[in-house]
């Protein structure tokens, strides 16, 4: 028994080579969207974890900074924030990048040893560093593996050697790839005395985050700003916005390139089937049915490309991970990414299929039947 839908699904596979080439062409665009989406979501989730590190309810950074990690604020704000009504505790963090061994981008994070708990880490081996002056570090699990360091070893940061006293894990790739050490030590290495990158703030149980962040911004808004969510971060941090914009730009490009590919494939298909379309008109098919058939075939083609693209995107991520990018990529497989891939495929099918479908539906039957 043949249905109209069955016919639509069957038709694109009449010319298998052409369909396969078109599917692969569109699938590459979809794969890029999916792979980028998986990486971007990982980056967002990792940034969100940093924001919500440990016991912190929100983070304070410098106003008008293009990237959260480029923020620089006076350490004196830590005490000022502690004074704000409803704030339970606050700790200043200074993050920096130092070359270590083969890795030119080794992340170091300075924090008051007494407030290490607010970072939300878990010591998996050894102990925390003991005092602000001790030349000690704790190293993240991923960093330890990459540098092949463990408790008792030393690493050189700036001009000094530091003893590894513990190994920690946070679940956040950026932090787990680097070290924690005392704030004082990082300030000395970076020559940034009395400066911090950001302040983690913990509020009292009965306090309201919105009220506290508002009162901080009212008081010190000229120099510092609060980030309580990823949305807040995106309004402050241009880095994530740039990635988002790039991701959408690539999606748009995939739609345009894929759309042109679909138009080409479907026009060829309509052209070859001109006589057949004439017959369909002669046996009484309405223009609308012919339009639906060709448009449907275009959507079948691009949805197939969507599925192939998603698989290609997933394979690409696995290849990147296998090639040793696991230190930089923390993939997050959210259904939204796959839906976006399929949505782009659908849009490409609709846009690319419309013109050939319209053209087929408007073919004069006698001309179509005369076509050799």
């Amino acid at each position, binding site marked *: 028994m043949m249905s109209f839908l069955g016919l639509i699904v069957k038709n694109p596979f009449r010319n298998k080579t052409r369909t396969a080439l078109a599917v692969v062409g569109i699938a590459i665009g979809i794969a890029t969207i999916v792979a980028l989406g998986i990486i971007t979501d990982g980056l967002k989730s990792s940034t969100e974890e940093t924001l919500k590190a440990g016991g912190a309810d929100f983070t304070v950074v410098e106003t008008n900074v293009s990237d959260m990690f480029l923020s620089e604020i006076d350490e004196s704000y830590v005490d000022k924030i502690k004074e704000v009504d409803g704030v339970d505790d606050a700790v200043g963090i200074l993050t920096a990048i130092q070359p270590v061994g083969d890795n030119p981008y080794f992340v170091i994070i300075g924090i008051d040893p007494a407030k290490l708990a607010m970072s939300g880490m878990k010591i998996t081996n050894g102990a925390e560093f003991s005092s602000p002056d001790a030349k000690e570090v704790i190293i993240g699990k991923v960093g330890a593996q990459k540098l092949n360091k463990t408790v008792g070893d030393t690493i050189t940061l700036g001009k000094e050697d530091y003893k590894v006293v513990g190994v920690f894990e946070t679940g956040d790739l950026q932090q787990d790839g680097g070290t924690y050490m005392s704030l004082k030590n990082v300030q000395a290495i970076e020559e940034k005395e009395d400066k911090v990158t950001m302040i983690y703030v913990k509020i009292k149980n009965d306090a309201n985050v919105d009220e506290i962040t508002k009162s901080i911004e009212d008081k010190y808004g000229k120099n510092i700003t609060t980030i309580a969510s990823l949305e807040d971060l995106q309004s402050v941090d241009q880095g994530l916005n740039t990635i988002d914009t790039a991701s959408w730009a690539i999606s748009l490009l995939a739609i345009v390139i894929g759309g042109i590919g679909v138009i080409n494939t479907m026009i060829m298909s309509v052209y070859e089937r001109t006589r057949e379309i004439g017959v369909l008109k002669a046996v*009484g098919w309405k223009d609308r049915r012919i339009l639906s058939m060709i448009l449907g075939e275009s959507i079948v083609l691009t949805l197939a490309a969507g599925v192939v693209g998603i698989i290609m995107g997933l394979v690409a991520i696995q290849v990147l991970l296998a090639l040793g990018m696991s230190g930089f990529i923390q993939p997050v497989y959210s259904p939204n990414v796959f839906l976006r891939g399929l949505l782009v495929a659908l849009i490409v099918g609709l846009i690319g299929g419309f013109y050939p479908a319209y053209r087929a539906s408007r073919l004069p039957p006698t001309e179509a039947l005369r076509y050799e």
Partner: protein
Amino acid sequence: MNDENIVEIKNLKKGFDKGKITALNGIDLTIKKGEFVSIIGPSGSGKSTLLNMIGALDRPDEGTIKVAGYDLKGKKDLSEFRSREIGFIFQLHNLIPNLSVVENVEIPMFESGLSGKKMREKALILLDYMNLSDKVSRKPTELSGGERQRVAIARSLANDPSIILADEPTGSLDSKNGEMILKRLKDLHDKEEVTLIMVTHDLNVAALAERTIEVLDGKIKV
């Protein structure tokens, strides 16, 4: 319209290439319901254009044309008319190559509102009528020329048309297969009382019809 007349054409004119070519130049013709008419004439005489006008595949420039109660000059969407009233048989079978024989016969029924099951039942009956019961699952490429044209006849009958329009139905067949196809068409006309209008340039074929009309230079030769 006279109840007896299924086709009524008055002063029908049709030109192509912005009027440079005159295909039909004032045709007057009536065809009775259930009649078997053949249209003859040399190449380029306008006989196929006339057939296309009756089948509403093309529109006239001037004159009136009424077929099975439909005013074909005034009506905007003619697909419903073609679906309900007309069965086309072309010189080349024009079957869809990726569909099976039975699926090809089902194609016109998509506009009829029949369920998939009913469509299949009807297509199988028509193929049985054409002695093709053993070929229903084959692809058109697996059939002989005569068999393909029999499938095309079955397809033309799918929506129980009141008129069958055949444009050189035996033109691409050898004489044996041609004879068989003509016999089928004649049977169809005799038993089902369907109106049959056939274009041919073969006088022997035309002689099978009850009436022969000769078209010359876009006019009916009297």
